[in-house]
């Protein structure tokens, strides 16, 4: 492990890789600071630009965007109470009141530094656990992979935003649509009504449509809303002594954030919310959370940035994305001819270890750019939504074209953009759809391979201990909303009263 990490650090100092890292951090800040754009949108839009890049530089750039965008979303949350992405919403609970009180600089400084320390702790956990997960996963066969896909999808349906029924609808929509194309076992055409669909629905153009283009339509709705103007640039402090009173909070939030980030579908939003709740209960000044307590900012930011590394752990070790942004990263890896999973550690160890190294090297870069670039980030939050919408729409279509130099991919992006917008209007979020598009093929092909190996018997999946346990977990996860609903039903005694 240490040897691989040292080799990865050596690779990091190539000029292309360093350029990728710096560009990724700066672009991530732009994306995160702009309300409406998220790390998944930024990564999806930038993937077409990585076609001609060195594979390592491309992957490092995408990971840097992921990390920096998740941090930068806290900037508009603190300055104008408009989080750059959902994971930063909790930061606004205390960050914005601090800004109103005239402590914007302190809030931003605490935010960036606790993000950095939280991310550092979670990267250490990632390095240790990802390799261990990959080693265990080398023994996985079709039964275990099928069970993993089922668990991943069941967790997404329960943990993603919005009602569980709608998340399940999004999931089943994705699982239905992913069957278009060539059957993975027999090679039969399925639902191929035009020759362009022979390889199925192209994943990245669909993803760009679902995330980025649907957001553009929302921006057009609110384009006439005035952007809040910030009159003064807050003074930042680069002193780590600001964090001294919150050491325990940061450590706890980072570990929690990492653990929650590992769970598919949970992500930074759940991590920051859970960490904030626990910090509030544990704090001596918990009654001031929500009124500008700096500890609230620290708990939220440390957790949501730690969740970034958490989401990468199952992605790299098992090929299962822990978040929608991690699902986008799968697309970035596949474009470079790399398949995430345990074989990645065996065949291309430089890839996961370079990701670890880029996270470690990127952290101080991210913190410094955040602390000293505050004037620029403040200006970015004031860019009119109308301009952002026009530029993003144009890049969406251009980016979709580059996947196959064909206008069909643009049509896919446009159609999925409309679908994504309409789905969001009825509270069906894109994350379950995207994760179904990622995991659906894995689920079907491993189910059918497992049945062939097990002589057409489903007992093949329950007699293997790991797959049996995973399938049981999936069943429990799926019925848990029903159990909670039953517990809320009034008892006969209470209705009589």
């Amino acid at each position, binding site marked *: 492990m240490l040897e691989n990490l040292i080799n990865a650090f050596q690779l990091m100092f190539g000029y292309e890789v360093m350029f990728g890292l710096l560009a990724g951090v700066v672009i991530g800040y732009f994306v995160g600071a702009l309300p409406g754009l998220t790390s998944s949108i930024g990564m999806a839009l930038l993937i077409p630009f990585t076609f001609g890049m060195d594979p390592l530089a491309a992957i490092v750039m995408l990971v840097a965007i992921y990390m920096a965008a998740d941090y930068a979303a806290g900037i508009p949350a603190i300055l104008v109470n408009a989080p750059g992405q959902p994971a930063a919403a909790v930061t606004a609970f205390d960050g914005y009141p601090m800004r109103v009180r005239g402590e914007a600089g302190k809030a931003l400084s605490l935010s960036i530094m606790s993000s950095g320390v939280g991310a550092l702790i979670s990267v250490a956990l990632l390095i240790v656990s990802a390799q261990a997960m990959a080693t265990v996963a080398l023994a996985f066969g079709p039964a275990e992979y099928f069970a993993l896909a089922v668990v991943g999808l069941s967790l997404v349906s329960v943990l993603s935003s919005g009602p569980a*029924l709608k998340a399940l609808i999004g999931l089943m929509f994705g699982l239905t649509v992913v069957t278009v194309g060539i059957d993975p076992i027999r090679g039969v055409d399925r639902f191929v009504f035009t020759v362009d669909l022979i390889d199925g629905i192209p994943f990245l153009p669909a993803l760009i449509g679902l995330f980025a283009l649907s957001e553009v339509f929302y921006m057009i709705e609110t384009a006439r809303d005035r952007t809040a103007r910030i009159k003064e640039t807050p003074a930042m402090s680069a002193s780590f002594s600001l964090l001294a009173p919150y050491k325990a909070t940061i450590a706890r939030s980072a570990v929690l954030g990492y653990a929650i980030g590992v769970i598919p579908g949970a992500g930074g939003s759940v991590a920051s919310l859970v960490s904030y709740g626990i910090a509030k209960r544990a704090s001596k000044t918990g009654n001031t959370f929500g009124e500008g307590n700096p500890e609230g900012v620290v708990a939220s930011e440390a957790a949501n940035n730690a969740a970034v590394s958490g989401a990468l752990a199952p992605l790299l070790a098992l090929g299962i994305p822990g978040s929608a942004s991690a699902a986008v990263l799968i697309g970035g890896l596949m474009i470079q001819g790399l398949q995430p999973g345990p074989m990645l550690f065996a065949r291309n160890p430089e890839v996961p270890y370079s990701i670890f190294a880029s996270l470690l090297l990127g952290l101080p870069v991210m913190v410094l750019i955040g602390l000293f670039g505050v004037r620029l980030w403040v200006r970015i939050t004031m860019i009119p939504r109308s301009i952002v919408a026009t530029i993003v729409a144009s890049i969406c279509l251009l980016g979709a074209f580059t996947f196959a130099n064909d206008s069909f991919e643009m049509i896919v992006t446009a159609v999925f953009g409309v679908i994504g917008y309409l789905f969001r209007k009825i509270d069906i979020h894109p994350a379950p759809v995207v994760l179904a598009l990622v995991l*659906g093929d894995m689920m079907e092909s491993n189910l059918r391979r497992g049945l062939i190996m097990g002589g057409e018997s489903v007992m093949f999946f329950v007699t293997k201990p790991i797959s049996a346990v995973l399938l049981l977990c999936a069943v429990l996860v799926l019925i848990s909303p029903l159990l909670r609903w039953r517990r809320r039903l009034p008892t006969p005694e209470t209705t009589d009263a």
Partner: protein
Amino acid sequence: MDQDRQAGAAAPQTGAAEGRPLTLSTSVLEIVIGLALLAMAAWFIWQSTLLPTDRNAVGPATFPLAAAILLAVLVLVLLGSAARRVAQGATTTFRRPLAVLGAMALVLAFPILMDVFGYYATAAVWLLAFGWLAHVKRPLLLGATMVGMLLFARIVFEMLLGTPLP
């Protein structure tokens, strides 16, 4: 419903060209979208029955058939729930509906127009139209955005990435 009305009142007045905010019953919207999903599921179920059968128990048709059936069942539950909630009066607001519809039409038309007129000619007109719909009203800013994006496409995609545009 009151919150939607208040939100509509608080938002800046939209012009006639953009359409007044359109407020629909959330349940009705769910029913309309649900019916579209049901139609899609029905198509997949029908097409799955036409796929060749396999000597194995789980063949090419099994997974899409199961997924489409489950989708249909879940959508029926949604439709039932939406029908029961119609009386509750919850609403969904579409602000600037004509602008959004126009943007959707432009996005869907772009690939078709590009195949006929080429990328740069299409993008030049498209960017001006889309920017106007997106409420970029200052002509200089609109023009600058258009020129900037065309230069971006030329420099980054054609020259740096080597992706020839039609």
